[in-house]
């Protein structure tokens, strides 16, 4: 999940080079005025409105429910279905079925060879070996045939995401207004819980492959648009002007100058699209795809954690294979890379095509249809016994910490309950004004207004039945907010020290990296249910699941930030006699501050992605409300839509706020000016 990857941080706003006394006094006066405005608003809020008033209900729930009902009644007759959705459905199903047939007919050695060939082309021998190795690993650990079905769905989805995303990116690079609109749309698409659009997608696209592709495209599209946009906007002005002066038309300019120069960024987008697509594969399998994702779900439904884990690792390995061959990332300098194969570049394609062809012919001739069972390795039994051991030994009677059950109870009673009760105790307008005030302190009026609008919109989402009466959606939002805040705090507490350590020690970095890679692609479902083994059903399990998912990117980005600090100021500090610790605290950490804060922004988005599916282990709140849009659409679709939109609004608010911290100028920069 990335609403805003670090690469997209807007440039640091420029500050006046120096302030005269008059300017400063004027600024102080304005600040005091603003403080007074917020104080008056807060006071009014306390006096007048403790609860969200019923007149604010926008009726969105009923509206959405009626649209759903209409679609059910009219899906056979309405022209929208007959001329748009039905042909589209047929096309998508046809594409996936034929891609799957093709992959299966290549036989497994052919698929491995194909991946290796692509890897060789993009990243040399190393990428070829990594890709092929990971692909063989899929067969060793999981079933190869369902994996090919997953791969077919992924391939079709990624191609469609690029076909839609790159032109959209080109257009938004040329229009600031379109970019702003698209940004909100894409943020919404990515944060809106999949549960909310599950039922409509089924109505529009039926079951199995077509809706799975649609869901995957919605989720994987944003990076294609964003990174194309970013790449084109980063093309140097000079390059554009040279093109102009040679009389290039606008289209020539685009295809001959801008796109080639933006190629690397766009390809980074391709890589991100693939990773996003893999992140959604298990959820998409709820539509009846019968692929590897469904093996994960089936394993969990029967409490066979080992089986779910094996299938999950299969997905991870496939993602790793595609990641390696799509970034072609050389670990070593290119010069040494190219020396390994003594093959001129323009021979690579013919050689690899011939090699793949040979492998396919052989595989078909000898009928290597199935992955040889002698090569498979069953990881499910050791996993099952490990999980069993953990469940029996870590839950209770552990010396000192008392076991996970005690941690779980502590989290609920001492942390989550007080937090939630505090948020519910505060008059709702005080929360609106208060968070807007934080926004104003961070970035000024514009951010304050954004935050206030988000929160006010949540208040228009109405009420839902529960607890023997009606509960405000606002209350559910505050429940979710309390879980999100606790999960973020815990993630940062765990990830920050590890990230700093990994940022300063290459050995630690090397040890952590493979775990971080796996943890980021491993479907959340694989550990969602095992989390319940240790932390009993409820919000504690949900928060822990969020933390497990959010810690790896937080570590990664913290370490990255630390590593990107230039060496010269650090060496200067040492040469002036600073100890290692002083150098870290006074030089490296402050210089890495922005990158680390953007890491927190990413952590937040990870937490928001997980807090929704945490409803499946008892976390309740907005996640449960939106899940019910899937589970009982004929009764609760409208509620689910309202709940899902509330999550989007919370996400946009928190995202803009943490992003403002990440892009605020460093204190050092301010002082040096």
């Amino acid at each position, binding site marked *: 999940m990335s609403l805003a990857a670090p690469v997209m941080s807007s440039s640091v706003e420029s500050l006046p080079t120096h302030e005269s006394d008059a300017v400063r006094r004027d600024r102080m006066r304005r600040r005091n005025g603003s403080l007074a405005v917020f104080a008056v608003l807060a006071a009014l809020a306390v006096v007048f409105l403790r609860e969200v008033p019923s007149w604010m209900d926008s009726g969105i729930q009923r509206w959405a429910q009626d649209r759903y009902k209409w679609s059910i009644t009219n899906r056979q007759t309405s022209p929208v279905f007959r001329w748009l959705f039905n042909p589209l459905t047929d096309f998508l199903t046809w594409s996936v079925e034929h891609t799957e047939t093709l992959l299966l007919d290549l036989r497994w050695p052919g698929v491995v060879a194909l991946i290796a060939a692509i890897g060789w082309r993009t990243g040399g021998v190393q990428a070829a070996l990594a890709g092929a190795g990971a692909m063989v690993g899929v067969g060793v650990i999981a079933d190869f045939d369902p994996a090919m079905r997953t791969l077919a769905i992924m391939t079709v989805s990624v191609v469609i995401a690029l076909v839609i995303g790159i032109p959209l990116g080109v257009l938004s690079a040329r229009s600031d207004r379109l970019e702003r609109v698209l940004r909100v749309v894409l943020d919404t698409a990515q944060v809106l819980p999949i549960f909310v659009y599950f039922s409509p997608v089924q109505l529009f696209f039926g079951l199995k492959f077509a809706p799975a592709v649609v869901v995957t495209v919605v989720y994987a599209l944003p990076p294609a648009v964003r990174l194309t946009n970013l790449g084109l906007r980063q093309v140097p002005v000079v390059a554009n002007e040279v093109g102009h002066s040679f009389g290039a038309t606008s289209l020539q300019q685009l295809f001959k100058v801008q796109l080639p120069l933006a190629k690397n960024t766009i390809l980074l987008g391709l890589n991100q699209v693939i990773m996003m697509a893999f992140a959604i594969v298990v959820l998409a399998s709820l539509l009846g795809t019968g692929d590897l994702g*469904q093996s994960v779900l089936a394993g969990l439904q029967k409490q066979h954690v080992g089986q779910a884990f094996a299938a999950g690792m299969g997905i991870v390995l496939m993602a790793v294979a595609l990641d390696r061959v799509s970034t072609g990332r050389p670990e070593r300098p290119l010069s040494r890379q190219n020396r390994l194969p003594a093959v001129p570049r323009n021979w690579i394609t013919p050689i690899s095509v011939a090699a793949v062809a040979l492998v396919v012919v052989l595989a078909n001739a000898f009928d290597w249809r199935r992955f040889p069972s002698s090569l498979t390795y069953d990881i499910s039994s050791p996993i099952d016994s490990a999980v069993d051991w953990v469940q029996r030994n870590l839950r209770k009677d552990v010396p000192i910490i008392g076991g996970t059950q005690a941690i779980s109870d502590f989290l609920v009673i001492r942390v989550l309950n007080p937090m939630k009760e505090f948020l519910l105790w505060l008059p709702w307008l005080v929360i609106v004004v208060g968070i807007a005030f934080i926004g104003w302190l961070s970035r000024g009026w514009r951010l304050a207004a954004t935050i206030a609008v988000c929160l006010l919109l949540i208040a228009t989402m109405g009420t839902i039945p529960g607890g023997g009466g009606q509960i405000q959606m606002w209350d559910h939002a505050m429940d979710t907010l309390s879980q999100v805040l606790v999960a973020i705090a815990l993630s940062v507490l765990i990830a920050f020290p590890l990230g700093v350590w990994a940022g300063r020690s290459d050995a630690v970095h090397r040890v952590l990296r493979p775990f971080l890679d796996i943890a980021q692609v491993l479907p959340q479902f694989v550990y969602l249910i095992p989390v319940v083994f240790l932390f009993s059903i409820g919000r504690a399990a949900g928060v822990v699941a969020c933390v497990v998912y959010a810690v790896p990117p937080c570590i990664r980005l913290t370490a990255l930030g630390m590593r990107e600090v230039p060496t010269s100021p650090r060496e200067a500090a040492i040469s002036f006699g600073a100890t290692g610790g002083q150098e870290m605290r006074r030089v490296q950490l402050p210089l890495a501050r922005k990158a680390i804060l953007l890491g927190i922004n990413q952590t937040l988005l990870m937490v928001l992605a997980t807090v929704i599916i945490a409803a499946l282990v008892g976390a309740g709140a907005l996640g449960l409300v939106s899940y019910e849009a899937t589970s009982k659409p004929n009764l609760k679709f409208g509620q689910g839509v309202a709940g899902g939109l509330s999550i989007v609004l919370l996400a946009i608010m928190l995202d803009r706020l943490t992003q403002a911290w990440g892009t605020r100028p460093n204190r050092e920069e301010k002082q040096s000016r």
Partner: protein
Amino acid sequence: MLVSRKLNKGEYMIFNGKKRHLAVAAVMLATLAACGDDEKAATTASGDCKELTGDAVTLAVNPWTGSAVNAQVAKAVIECQLGTPVEIIEIDEYATWVGLDDASIDAVLEVWPSGHAADYQTYITEKGTVIDLGLLGPSAKIGWYVPKFVVDEHPELASWEGFQDPALAALFGTAESGELGQFTMGDPSYVTFDEQIIANLGLPLKYVVAGSEAALLTAIDQAIADNQPLLMQFWKPHWKHLEAELVEVALPAITPACEAAAASGDGTYACDYPVDELMKAANAGLEAKNAAAFNVLKAFQLTTDQQSEIAGYVDRDGLTAQAAAEKWVADNPDVWGAWLG
């Protein structure tokens, strides 16, 4: 995710001007792949089975064993005796109705009607795109359950009246429920009157949604391992009854008032759950598409014992649903012989 920030120029030759090579490669691969097609011989079982021809009939399997074995038994019979291929699609209960509506699913052999009154109304009564295929045979029942050790220690908890005592209810307390006892609900998609029952009987319990069946099953294991009381919504038949001793808590008998409350949804329900007579449903076009298969599915019936026997092969003996169904079909030709009419 997994992004390298070091991007060097010229690493992405695949997108460069060498499209000719790629096109050649694609054509070659496609040709080779096509060569493999004719090898797709029929992989069906030997014996006196008919060869598979024609369009497949699609059966939905919902995520529980009973549903899977019904469909696999039907598949084994229809494929072998009629020569019609049967495709199985694993899908959740509510999506099943959407599939029945647009004929991407031809039939489902186990519907628990209590959870689908609205779907029955919409698709069968109003739209007429789905038809009622009659009863499957077994009946099922949702209810309140506790592990057996709870009733051994406190016999009064075998009935709902026992839960009126706050001290006894508090035995079921957790961090989430505070001073009250916790009532645990599994998957929120299941039919539930529990919140209403708790409120209308005035029980000191807090309704907590575990979120999924898997989470609920884990809670059962933990409760039994820790001797920690657990009160939950559960049902029969379910494979968990084979390995965990669970006792149903008696709730007030169903009254006409409760039936009215269930129909109107006015929130006054305060009785036990009704018995679910499991039923079958099909797309309305199935009879025209394949009358022979339609007739078999319409006649398809299993007794509770027969279904438990096949489910036992899966849940107890670790067979796949397909293997279990084939074993049972081989052993019981007289039962399915009757479906062929």
